[in-house]
């Protein structure tokens, strides 16, 4: 557990203390993510709270995590073993994952051995106060052979927010042979908050990982997914959507490593950026030598709604094997004027018409979610 008192700490100084080199604008993997606000803020450790966030409109087993601390007792769920973690699963060079390990608030070990009937919801909730709080939370999710589960992460906050807070989340996920994990995330942090999340996923033979992440909030947010397809027949679907009308930086980063033959990955990421917001997408498909008969596809599309909005995209293919099918595409532009005109000529107001188009645009990514209830939930979330 961290040795933090009530004192406030400058994040860069904390990093220095642990010898962690935080990214600068010259760090390639972070070049588009402007971290200045995040790094130059003084934080102090979040105190625990009893308050909990609201729940989505479907049945789920819930673990409430308030201010980075698990609220109450851990629930008992059939087929799941829950405990607090004592150490991290693997080493990483990721600067924020290193900080997460160094200053861990709390962490959960979630071992899944059966086929879960209900989704497991990790309901993160922050009650901000006048001070700048930060918390580092980590989950180790192990899906044992032949198991199947659905895990949903929701990040929300309470009330009007004057201060900023920083949530640094790491998920270490191991999917064993023939296991299946659906992993959905909804990020709607306060508009001054910072949110950095890393999902490190290792998939064994014939394992399946399906993910979707909707980012709507925060000041600086990054959702990074790193997937290692380690066993033949392993499959990963990494979809995401982001929408922002304020001034935030929303970053979606994926790194997908095909290490063995006959693996498959697909990505569809769509964003809508307005105000003075800044959208970032960085995606890499890496195919190791001899990882033949692999398929990797990636598509990123973004719409800019305002003159000050920005979008930076870096899709990347890194291929060392010849018998592969890989492609990526990226497009950005504004809302189709003809479509807008079509609707306006039928008496639909401009704002409403825009909203309809945006919804249709983002719904593309949502329709790929396997679970119908979750799909419907996300459809509601993108209209709000």
């Amino acid at each position, binding site marked *: 557990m961290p040795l933090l008192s009530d004192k406030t700490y400058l994040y860069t100084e904390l990093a220095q203390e642990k010898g962690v080199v935080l990214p600068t604008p010259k760090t390639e993997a972070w070049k588009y993510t402007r971290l200045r606000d995040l790094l130059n803020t003084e934080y102090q450790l979040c105190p625990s709270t009893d308050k909990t966030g609201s729940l989505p409109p479907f049945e789920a087993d819930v673990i409430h995590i308030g201010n980075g601390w698990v609220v109450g007792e851990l629930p008992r769920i059939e087929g799941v073993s829950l405990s607090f973690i004592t150490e991290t699963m693997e080493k990483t060079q990721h600067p924020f994952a290193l900080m997460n390990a160094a200053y861990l608030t709390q962490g959960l070990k979630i071992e899944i051995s059966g086929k879960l009937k209900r989704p497991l919801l990790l309901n993160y909730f922050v009650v901000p106060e006048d001070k700048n709080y930060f918390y580092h939370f980590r989950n180790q999710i192990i899906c044992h052979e032949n198991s199947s589960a659905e895990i949903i992460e929701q990040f929300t906050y309470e009330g009007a927010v004057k201060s900023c807070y920083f949530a640094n989340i790491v998920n270490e996920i191991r999917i064993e042979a023939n296991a299946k994990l659906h992993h959905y995330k909804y990020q709607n942090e306060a508009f001054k908050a910072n949110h950095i999340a890393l999902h490190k996923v290792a998939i064994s033979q014939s394992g399946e990982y399906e993910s979707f992440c909707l980012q709507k909030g925060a000041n600086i947010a990054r959702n990074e997914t790193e997937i290692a397809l380690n066993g033949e027949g392993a499959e990963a679907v990494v979809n995401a959507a982001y929408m922002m009308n304020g001034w935030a930086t929303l970053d979606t980063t994926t790194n997908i490593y095909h290490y063995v033959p006959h693996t498959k990955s697909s990505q569809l990421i769509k964003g809508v950026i307005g105000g003075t917001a800044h959208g970032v997408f960085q995606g890499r498909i890496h195919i190791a030598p001899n990882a033949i008969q692999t398929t990797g596809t990636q598509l990123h599309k973004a719409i800019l709604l305002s003159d000050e909005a920005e979008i930076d995209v*870096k899709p990347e293919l890194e291929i060392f094997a010849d018998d592969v099918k890989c492609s990526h595409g990226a497009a950005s532009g504004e809302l189709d004027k003809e479509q807008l005109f079509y609707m306006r000529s039928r008496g639909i107001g401009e704002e409403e018409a825009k909203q309809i188009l945006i919804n249709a645009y983002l719904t593309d990514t949502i329709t790929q979610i396997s679970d119908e209830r979750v799909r419907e939930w996300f459809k509601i979330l993108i209209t709000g």
Partner: protein
Amino acid sequence: MNRPEIIDESGDKYKYGFTTDIEADTAPVGLTEDIIRLISRKKEEPEWLLDWRLKAFEFWQTMQEPTWAKLSYDKIDYQSLHYYSAPKQKVAPKSLSEVDKNLLETYDKLGIPLKEQEALAGVVAVDAVFDSVSVATTYRAKLAEKGIIFCSISEAIKNHPDLVKKYLGSVVPYTDNYFACLNSAVFTDGSFVYIPKGVKSPMELSTYFRINAKNTGQFERTLIVAEDDSYVSYLEGCTAPQRDENQLHAAIVEIVVMNNAEVKYSTVQNWYPGDKDGKGGVYNFVTKRAACRGANSKISWTQVETGSAVTWKYPSCVLQGDNSVGEFYSVAITNNRQQADTGTKMIHIGKNTTSKIISKGISAGFSNQTYRGLVKVTPQADNARNYSQCDSLLIGTNCGSHTVPYVENRNRSAVLEHEATTSKISEEQLFYCQQRGIGEEEAVSLIVNGFCKEVMQHLPMEFAIEAAKLINISLEGSVG
């Protein structure tokens, strides 16, 4: 299908591996302020240029060699190179017949038919660069009639100092990057083209570069200025003799395009790629950039890159003028141990600017290739449009192909599209060809030529033939 004519005993297929024995006037090894002063003195340069060189050298010493490219090569010892080497000739030749016979023979072997060209009457004018100093320039009279200046940059510095002073370093400042800065300090020669207002060049202008003297870094500098309503098509072709030491080549090409003007720049790059184990070969670090300063201006880069052990090259378009157009067509082929990190930059600044990128990469053997490109739309570039397509073909299981495009959009009215695919030669296509009695190697070369067609058709005629041959030679031995 033609087989390459020369296969030497080492099994290498580099057709142009020979050295011409001409007495060279070479500066001592190393890079110091004195060497730069020597180069400047030898070239009888004005004071301002020497000052500029020295400023560049001073700045270069504060810079770090870039490491972001996906390239690995032995560290270059910049102090072990000669920075000046000129073929010794007592009197400057007035016509081709006065040029050193050895030189002419070299060109013949390379397939630059200088004399033939003369006979062909005005198809191509060659400003042949042999190492660092221009030795023969043809058709200058005909061009001069139209007011076109086409000469070596050293001559331009002497005869048109105002033009050179105005444009030199205006597109690629000496502070631009490590290799451009080095070039600015030590460049020895290159070409200068000035197309006056309203003039369309009556022929394609062409320069053949050729590295010759042992251990000489080549630092060419080309400057092309196209005034309002003008047009020029410029060809650059490269071959280099075979050597064991790695040779450094850090060139700069600067192009300025004014209102309604168009420049078409085509390159066939075939420097010595090293032998099949990666020994030797040219290090090619090139900065090429065109500024479309005027409205409705257009720049088109076409390149066929088959040579060099290491290629680091990003021909760029700065689209400043409204309605300006930038195009980039590229075929890059790497085989054996070659490495290439190449692509383009499209910077949209003016309104209604459009750009198009078509890049075809073919990796074979143990080679690695990266497409690295940037499309940037600034806030004032309303209605910018870009289309990028990068296709890669892998031949064999030991090569690598990478695509790293950067797209930065600051304007909502911009429409940007990027597509990339990677695949191998389809078994079906191969089978189809073989079924019809076409050998495997020949079939591969047919398919590869088809794969590149979109780019090749943008090459001028003379180049298109040479380039198609080069592709076949480059891929020799990569199949089966």
